[in-house]
């Protein structure tokens, strides 16, 4: 189904809503075609394809808002969805914070967001790549016991129409590969992993991912225990991405900011992070994975400096039209969640295209600069402990190593960290020059003066 057809579906539903008595209406329709080949124990065990589509209907009558999300693109069922949305609005109390749906703004499509070849990948193609990766990982060492991971390809499109004249659409393709290798020797297991994401399947170097995971898993066998404490820490780009994405999630949504539950609120215009640390949210940057020009309200997505040389400001906050309407003179920054996320994720505005600026250090230089510290490949199960103080906790995983006198010396047991990002990212000694995508977040490696590790997993 083309974006033109989706737009026609949205426009028709808006007209139906107005005909049935809505003062204003907005309809976003989407279609998502995805396929994923997953493997574990060195064989494919889950291999799925999914065709999803639907509409998100928002109607307003006398400041009363009704929303309905339906997994259907059938004309009759959409009309029914519009009727139900109106019934919800009619019994809802008026929302005094609601000013209006947004007026249309000029937007331009993003070139290179959609690759038809990525969208059209076959199960045979994915299975072939998986077979290559399993073979490559095992070929690296006889110690490799099992290889797991997934190879996914797909595309999604959405179109938004509103009674105020918004008419916008987007189409993107996505491809991802990740591999986890498990090595074993004399009763000890070692884990290693790597991943890549792109809009273009041809850009994925699946063999490199398999090699990297296999090498790390072998090097991780027989980890030693180190005591919890503060360590100089080198974060791989994937580990950095965890910190950056949680900062985005906790700090930069207008909803949490307005509720006083964001750390940004209490540190405006302060040098809260190291001055080498800059993060933007930019859907047009070539590094961006989910390259959509408009948000879930059909407004152009503005590029925002979330963290500018370590400083956060009012200009860092992501707004949709509703949250912007609560502040005098404020305008939407184009950060309403896209229609597909409206089905599955939070309804509040937040950054989904974060890119941390690169520095000038190589990985070798960062490790060489550490006298006694830790290298982290990735973090696992990170969660906020206190969002206003940006305190996170989580564990290391798939390759944690001791660095001694400028060299990686030996693997260590996984560590738990519990630290405030306002402390950990206040003193960043070095930032890597190479960027890497981890899902929607793009980051370099970073060398932190210290990270607080509070526990050890003993295995």
């Amino acid at each position: 189904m083309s974006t033109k057809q989706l737009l026609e579906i949205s426009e028709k539903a808006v007209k139906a809503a107005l005909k049935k008595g809505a003062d204003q209406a907005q309809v976003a329709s989407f279609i998502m075609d995805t396929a994923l080949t997953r493997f574990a124990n060195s064989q494919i065990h889950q291999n799925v394809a999914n065709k999803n589509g639907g509409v998100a209907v928002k109607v307003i009558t006398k400041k009363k808002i009704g929303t309905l999300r339906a997994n259907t693109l059938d004309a009759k069922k959409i009309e029914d969805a519009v009727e139900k949305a109106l019934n919800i609005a009619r019994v809802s109390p008026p929302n005094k914070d609601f000013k209006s749906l947004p007026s249309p703004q000029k937007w331009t499509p993003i070139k290179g967001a959609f690759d038809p070849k990525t969208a059209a990948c076959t199960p045979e193609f994915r299975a072939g790549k998986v077979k290559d990766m399993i073979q490559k990982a095992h070929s690296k060492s006889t110690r490799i016991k099992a290889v797991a991971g997934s190879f996914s390809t797909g595309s999604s499109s959405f179109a938004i129409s509103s009674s105020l004249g918004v008419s916008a659409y987007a189409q993107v393709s996505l491809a991802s590969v990740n591999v986890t290798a498990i090595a074993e020797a004399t009763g000890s297991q070692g884990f290693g992993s790597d991943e890549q994401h792109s809009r273009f399947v041809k850009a994925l170097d699946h063999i490199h991912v398999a090699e990297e995971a296999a090498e790390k898993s072998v090097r991780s066998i027989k980890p030693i225990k180190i005591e919890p404490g503060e360590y100089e820490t080198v974060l791989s780009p994937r580990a950095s991405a965890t910190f950056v994405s949680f900062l985005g999630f906790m700090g930069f949504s207008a909803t949490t900011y307005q509720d006083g539950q964001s750390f940004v609120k209490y540190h405006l215009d302060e040098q809260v992070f190291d001055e080498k640390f800059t993060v933007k949210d930019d859907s047009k940057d070539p590094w961006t994975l989910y390259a959509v020009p408009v948000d879930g309200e059909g407004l152009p997505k503005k590029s925002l400096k979330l963290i500018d040389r370590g400083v956060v400001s009012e200009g860092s906050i992501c707004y949709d039209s509703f949250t912007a309407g609560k502040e005098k003179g404020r305008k939407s920054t184009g950060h309403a969640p896209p229609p597909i996320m409206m089905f599955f994720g939070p309804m509040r505005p937040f950054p989904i295209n974060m890119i941390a600026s690169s520095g000038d250090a190589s990985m070798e230089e960062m490790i060489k600069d550490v006298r006694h510290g830790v290298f982290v490949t990735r973090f696992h199960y990170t969660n906020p402990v206190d969002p206003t103080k940006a305190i996170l906790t989580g564990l290391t995983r798939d390759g944690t190593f001791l660095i001694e006198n400028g060299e990686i010396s030996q693997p260590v047991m996984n560590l738990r960290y519990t630290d405030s990002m306002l402390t950990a990212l206040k003193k960043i000694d070095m930032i890597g020059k190479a960027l890497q995508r981890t899902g929607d977040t793009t980051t370099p490696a970073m060398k932190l003066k210290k990270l607080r590790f509070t526990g050890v997993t003993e295995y």
Partner: protein
Amino acid sequence: MSAELGKAVLETARKNGASYVDVRIGEVFDEHVTVKKGLPDDISLRQTNGFGVRVIVDGAWGFAGSVFLTKGEAVQTAQAAVSIAKASSKAKKKPVALTPSESRKGKYATKMKKDPFRVPLDEKIDFLLHAERTIAGQSDLIKSSSAFFRAFRENKLFMSTEGAEISQQITWCGGGLEGVAVRNGEVQRRSFPASFRGNFSTSGYEFFESLALSDHAKQVGQEAVKLLDAEKCAATETDLILTGDQLALQIHESCGHPTELDRALGMEADYAGTSFLVPNKLGKLKYGSKYVNIVADATVPGGLGTFGFDDEGTPARCTDLIKSGLFVGYQTSRETAAELRQKRSSGGMRAQSPMALPLIRMTNINLLPGNWKSDEIVEDTKKGVSMMVNKSWSIDDRRLNFQFGTEIAWKIKNGSKEKILKNPTYTGMTPIFWGSCDAVSKNDWKMWGTPNCGKGVPGQVMYVGHGCATARFTKTRIGVLR
């Protein structure tokens, strides 16, 4: 729902070479009513319709799902599932084997007195606004207050080439409250009856009414404010008492997930991780103290993980996981049970929607009641801390090293609750922690519903239940924050 569409799927896939086929056709209704700061925040309905086809061809799995409920799409999707399975067979070490079929024709519907979808929306909104305004009215320091209701219904038809034809209607609902106090950049939150948006049960609207949110709103607001002036939970090792609202998540993370056999067999290694409960420890590993008895029970009335049949057609049942502290059982599927040469599945295969692949999911993972009364546990504690209502959570990829934070705690001295503590946290290693359990109460045993358990790639969310009561754990490390 159309059995005709299901038959078309089964026939097409079989004609194209499938040795086994199942199809789930379903619809989901998910109503959200949230009020915040005196205004409607999210009043919405999510509707999902679709079907999913699972096949075995040449000894390998294939799955395809679609939202388009037409006969033409059914045929195409069945063909796609077969093509995918053929591709899977290229990277296969051994053919898929399943435990013997327990398939049958059957029907199941959640028992309820009052259909939550038939209660007028404005009645729900008025009720929530009253409770929410009560929280806000407790203090000017309450900067955010909210109250919420959610109702969920899934109608589904399961058919397979083994002759199954099972229709089910699962309905659940619930809700909760939240008050957030803010002063000088410090934020304290209290929720009722639990965080994660409250508590939920496979029941009718009568369950939501039984929560009596308005009766608890005052306490929620007052405690959020009191926490601003409370003493911080100090770092020490002490006896820890957990009430059911927090213990439910402890069970979820440190017993529920590690006893999923797909995890233990390495099938989730690339995402959530593996499990320290590997098969050679079954029947041998001392998981906890003799007071620890944990089951996976899909038959408990009202449990959020209660149903008639799982998404492989296996009837709901109860399975021992931990018996008198010994690790004795897994949550399984037909495929993973066969891998361990077990005779039948534990019946926990579920999918988040008709279009998603079923995975081993928790049903109701329950810590069975002990012999204590909850008050007796406090009275018996000379020095300790009692923590309640989860605030943060994290556990490692083998489910050993965990750390939890709760909204509130009480310092216990000589058998009495002495004072409130803020920012409480505790940490431990799973078998050591459960091994330190020396008391489980019976009088406050109840079911807790967790509607947001994540698992799998692509990610799926599932509703699961945990039955538990207040319990005590000796010599636990608390107060991890600076």
